[in-house]
């Protein structure tokens, strides 16, 4: 009998292009044609077929240019989809955009995808939005698929049981030209979150707890499969939040085995299979979960009951602590490099060791990004702010992940809840996650953000980012400083 396999191994195996026989025949042909021994070196990386390629404006221009220079064409425009998200302003879109370079980059994308006949959700399309929000929303991201995008948060799509990972621009060009990618086989890692989550504890806290445990390089070279009762209990959107930040632990990808929730989420979405194809797809999807007895290279276990709301205090997503805690003392870090980094982090963040997290006052609150901008995130944040007012000391904004999320929220009256409370209600895009559109922090401003990276300058030069869940961000917006959302919900 064949060795039991994990979810990621099954998807990998199913996408290796040359069969062993084909590979052998190819090598034999090379020998026949008098090729030197070196050319026959054993290739350690596999050639994988890519089922879906998501394209956005920032990492694709040079790839299309490369194709043009070498006279190559896009092999499968019908397995490729594009949108503009990183550069787009999230207000006053009908007015001229402030940055001519942003206009140029989106224009270049539009021209490139037009030339290649790649379907495109442009800025005027209702379906435009953050690339990792629209893939699942449209039902394009499905179990058992290989999905790539020139963006590290592509791991988000793993929530549907797909093997999804970020690539660089040269790899984008390779996928455009060949619909394949050469990749070294990753290790397998199980992160099990057992038990139950307490009230007010979210998917964001789960992933921050995981990164806190394994570190920002803890998943390097591995695909993480999130398992256990807590993961199963999360909604598909919650699983997206967890998988989204897999890269923040250094992992190649993150994924959750498909289950009935996955199928219910997908059924009826525009690009989901229909009729007989749906039945066939279900059979395939049900065959995917990790088999009993399959071995992972590494296993990490967390207990759901022990997870509290997390807040980051430093300059990477591993620099986090429970909301009931205090800013740590850099001297408490053992490794010299970590100690040095913690020291520089406190200087950059202008924080003193020992300060209670709940005494940290804020200037800005940002609810949005591919981590936390879906309808459930907005509902959860709205539930905290309903009928209350944003603190007069800060500016707060909500940026839905897509035009369709925005429309849905407005149907539910969430826009009114946020606007009445004093939040700005904006158009879909990456917004203040990464400081490449008009939404940025001013130097020295401190922000509670539902995004994924608290790197120095990430939200604008000199800006200070604290990562939290949408509920924690909403509660902080009302108080003007961090508070324990569990107290607010009580």
């Amino acid at each position: 009998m064949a060795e039991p396999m994990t979810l990621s191994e099954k998807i990998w195996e199913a996408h290796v292009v040359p069969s062993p026989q084909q590979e052998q025949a190819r090598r034999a042909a090379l020998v026949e044609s008098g090729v030197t021994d070196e050319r026959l070196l054993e290739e350690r990386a596999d050639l994988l077929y890519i089922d879906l390629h998501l394209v956005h404006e920032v990492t694709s221009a040079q790839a299309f240019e490369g194709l043009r220079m070498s006279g190559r064409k896009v092999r499968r425009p019908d397995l490729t989809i594009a949108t503009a998200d990183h550069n787009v302003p999230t207000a006053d879109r009908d007015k001229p955009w402030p940055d001519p370079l942003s206009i140029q980059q989106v224009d270049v994308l539009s021209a490139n995808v037009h030339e290649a006949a790649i379907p495109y959700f442009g800025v005027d399309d209702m379906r435009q939005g953050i690339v990792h929000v629209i893939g699942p929303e449209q039902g394009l991201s499905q179990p058992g698929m290989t999905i790539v995008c020139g963006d590290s948060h592509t791991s988000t799509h793993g929530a549907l049981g797909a093997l999804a990972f970020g690539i660089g621009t040269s790899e984008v060009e390779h996928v455009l030209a060949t619909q394949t990618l050469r990749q070294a086989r990753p290790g397998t890692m199980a992160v099990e979150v057992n038990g139950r989550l307490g009230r007010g504890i979210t998917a964001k806290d789960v992933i921050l707890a995981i990164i806190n445990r394994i570190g920002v390089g803890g998943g390097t070279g591995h695909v993480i499969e999130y398992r256990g009762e807590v993961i199963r209990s999360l909604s598909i959107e919650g699983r997206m939040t967890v998988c989204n930040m897999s890269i923040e632990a250094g992992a190649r990808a993150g994924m959750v085995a498909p289950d009935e929730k996955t199928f219910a989420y997908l059924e009826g979405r525009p690009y989901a299979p229909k009729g007989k194809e749906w039945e066939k797809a279900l059979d395939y999807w049900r065959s995917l979960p990790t088999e009993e007895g399959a071995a992972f290279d590494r296993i990490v276990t967390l207990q759901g009951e022990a997870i509290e709301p997390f807040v980051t205090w430093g300059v990477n997503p591993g620099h986090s602590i429970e909301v009931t805690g205090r800013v740590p003392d850099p001297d408490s870090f053992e490794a010299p490099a970590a100690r040095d980094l913690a020291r520089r982090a406190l200087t950059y963040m202008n924080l003193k060791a020992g300060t209670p997290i709940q005494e940290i006052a804020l200037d800005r609150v940002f609810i949005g990004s591919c981590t936390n901008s879906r309808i459930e995130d907005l509902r959860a944040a709205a539930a905290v702010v309903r009928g209350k007012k944003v603190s007069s000391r800060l500016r707060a904004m909500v940026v839905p992940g897509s035009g369709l999320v925005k429309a849905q929220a407005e149907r539910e009256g969430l826009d009114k809840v946020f606007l009445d409370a004093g939040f700005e209600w904006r158009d879909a895009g990456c917004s203040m996650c990464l400081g490449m559109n008009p939404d940025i922090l001013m130097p020295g401003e401190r922000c509670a953000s539902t995004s994924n990276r608290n790197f120095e300058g990430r939200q604008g030069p000199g800006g200070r980012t604290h990562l939290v869940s949408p509920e924690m961000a909403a509660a902080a917006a009302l108080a003007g400083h961090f508070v324990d959302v569990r107290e607010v919900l009580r």
Partner: protein
Amino acid sequence: MKRVTTVRGKAIPLNRANVDTDQIIPARYLKRVERTGYGPFAFEAWRKDPGFVLNDKRYEGAPILLARQNFGSGSSREHAVWALEGMGVQAVIAPSFADIFRNNAFQGGLLTVELPDEDIDYLVARAEELPSAEVVVDLESQTVRTADGGWERRFEIDPFRKYRLMRGLDDISMTLEYEADVAAFEARRPGFMPTTLP
């Protein structure tokens, strides 16, 4: 792909852990549609500190960068590789690299050399003490050595990657040799897999 064999020159003791791609090249500089022109903006925020090692004239023109674990973490932006190359860096030596960065570096012909922390300790101390001292990274023999020959370490690299780097082979043209296999794979893909057509 650029052909790479040997990198020889001064080494910059950056000596930091978890250097992320937002530090290497901030997002606001990713709006160019070319592969060049990023060098002047590399490490822009850290360069504002006059004491930052890249502001030290003694390391000007150094082609080797010494860093700590998890170099290149964060975003998938290949602009990080283009920015390092734009500032003249041809090899980065660190105990570990982020996966996507390592792939991108390979595509751009920027060498990523993994050496254990104690070897980085030695190279950093030496670069700090003798900024003009040269280091040689030799891909053929898979070694890092001091130019005076007094110290040498071997590093590991995937043999096929080494083969391609040393010849500057184009990945896409190599994959296109698999055209028949790709077509056969496409013929057996299940019909329920989605297309993006409207």
